[in-house]
């Protein structure tokens, strides 16, 4: 590849009380790519992602962003670098409306801290329109929105502030088929804009149709990465469950 990957993990390790949660992991994410990160619960995928999103510091290893090494010490640091995370529970404040959630912690204010509600509403609408997201009303409380609508708010919040890397933890696990399709279309749309997306899932079916590439983790290590087009679901399942690579695939092909 001619240009540096958007995110490059190299030799990342993290232990909790002597247990290797993540062990010597190296993994790349390219701009505009959707990478599915698969593995059982406890395989280390969440820990790896939390290292990228600033929740945990790594014990060893290096993260490069577009080629330059970065030191991510807090979620604020990560956000400042354009790394946004959408947690499985979405981390929305249900007692606030969509606009308030979209701008939470990053409100548009004057220098005395007073908010410009109209400017935020306008920006939120522009942002949602650009992503072709539909919400019944921006001033409705998040508590009254459907699962898919909430996902839309969480995604809008993540990408509104010029995200380069988007991490999504089980993005479609709680959604019905129709909403899953919508979120899927949105993920493709965002990737086409050049955002690198990491989808975390323990269920192959959630990500198989969406991801360009799959990375499977097991016992804290990367079993292998593969282009989705090159493998069957059964082969990926074997990687997840037994840690065996499909015939003809080299260990860590990347």
């Amino acid at each position, binding site marked *: 590849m001619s240009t540096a990957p958007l995110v490059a993990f190299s030799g990342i390790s993290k232990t909790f009380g002597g247990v290797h949660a993540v062990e010597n992991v190296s993994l790349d994410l390219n701009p505009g790519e959707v990478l599915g990160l698969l593995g059982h619960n406890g395989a280390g995928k969440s820990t790896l992602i939390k290292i990228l999103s600033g929740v945990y510091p790594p014990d060893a290893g290096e993260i490069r962003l577009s080629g330059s090494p970065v030191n991510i010490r807090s979620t604020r640091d990560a956000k400042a670098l354009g790394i946004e995370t959408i947690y499985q529970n979405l981390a929305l404040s249900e*007692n606030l409306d969509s606009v308030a959630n979209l701008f939470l912690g990053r409100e548009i204010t004057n220098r005395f801290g007073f908010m410009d509600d109209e*400017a935020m509403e306008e920006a939120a609408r522009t942002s949602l329109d650009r992503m072709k997201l539909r919400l019944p009303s921006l001033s409705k409380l998040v508590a009254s929105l459907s699962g898919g609508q909430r996902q839309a708010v969480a995604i809008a919040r993540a990408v509104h502030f010029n995200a380069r890397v988007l991490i999504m933890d089980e993005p479609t696990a709680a959604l019905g088929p129709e909403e899953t399709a919508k979120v899927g279309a949105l993920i493709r749309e965002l990737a086409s804009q050049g955002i690198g997306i990491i989808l975390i899932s323990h269920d192959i079916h959630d990500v198989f149709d969406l991801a360009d590439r799959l990375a499977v983790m097991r016992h804290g290590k990367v079993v292998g990465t593969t282009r989705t087009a090159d493998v069957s679901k059964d082969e990926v399942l074997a990687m997840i469950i037994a840690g065996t690579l499909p015939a003809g695939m080299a260990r860590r092909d990347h």
Partner: protein
Amino acid sequence: MAVATVRPRSFSDNIAQAAGLDARLLAMLGILVLIWLGFDFLTSGIFLTARNLFNLSLQVSVVGIMACGMVLVIVARQIDLSVGSQLGFIGVFGALLQTEILPIADPNTWWLACIAMIVVGTIIGVVQGVLVAYAGIPSFVVTLGGLLFFRNAAYQINEGRTISPLNETFQLLGGGINGSIGATWSWVFGIAAIAGVVLVVLRGRQRRRGHGVAQRTPLTDAITIGVWSALIIAFVMTMNAYQQPKTGIAMGIPIPVLILIGVALAMSVIAKKHRFGRHVFAMGGSPESAELAGIDTRLLTVKVLALMGFLCGLASIVITARLNAGASATGTMTELNVIAAAVIGGTSLAGGIGTIYGGILGALIMQSLESGMILMGVPTPMQKMVLAVVLILAVWIDMAYRRRQAT
């Protein structure tokens, strides 16, 4: 292209939105009007006299000022049980300051004492806030300690004496005989308030137009101005109708009520329009989400309790000035009135939900019930029992209302 759509508004929505109010608030206003009319009937017309309404407004100011802070404290999923004790302690402190440290008749004494009292309240709030946010002790425990500590500190520092009289200018802040602004200034205030309403409405239109955000109908805006103007005029006329007992000079708006109005406006703006208020509601709704959004929830907790302490200082100025005395027992059990006012006003103890105007209306409803029962000659224990039932009933109705809304 998908655009967020706006539901067409019905006429009742128009009225509700006009006053910037929701259906819940209108219901509370309705209940208040019913209480007033009911007591007026039961007391053969004594309740709705200028004199009684004047006193009612005066009585409600202390609890109202503190309820504004308590709403935010409860919204933030905390509680402050120490506010009544703070009221007593800060009052004794302010009285001692005026009588034993500062020259009592000096023209600077009153404002120096006021600043010192507010500073002491704020410091108490900061200390309690740090214990809650950084030491991780539940606010219930910290402020229960505060309740015990400051009540007894109030007895300790003045050896149980009642300190009186206080500086004469300071006394005006309590709204005594001379503690009102008179008819002329009351009208000036009323006209300025109406001008303020008009200005806010026009600016709202302008801002919405500038950003292409859904506009309110002109009817809505006209009703807004009409309703508020009528309320303001009625209020000023009532306050002016009450006359000084001997001279017959119109009293006008009492200073404590002006303080309450100022606090209520400032706190409403902070709660709704300032980043700080937004973050408090976010934290109360979901502390984890607020944290992940990058909000420093610990510092925010300290700020909320500090603001509560600040308002306790302010309320203490009013009550101490009104009593013209620093007494150790001042404010005993007031914490319960303040919390009850916030809760009756729709503040959810689960956090994340509440309004400043709700807290003030809650205080007004409680005070109206108490005042009405006193006029009817209901024995004190009976009054308190009725208030207790009202408190539980109010929360029950509020929960039922919310449940219905959620579906």
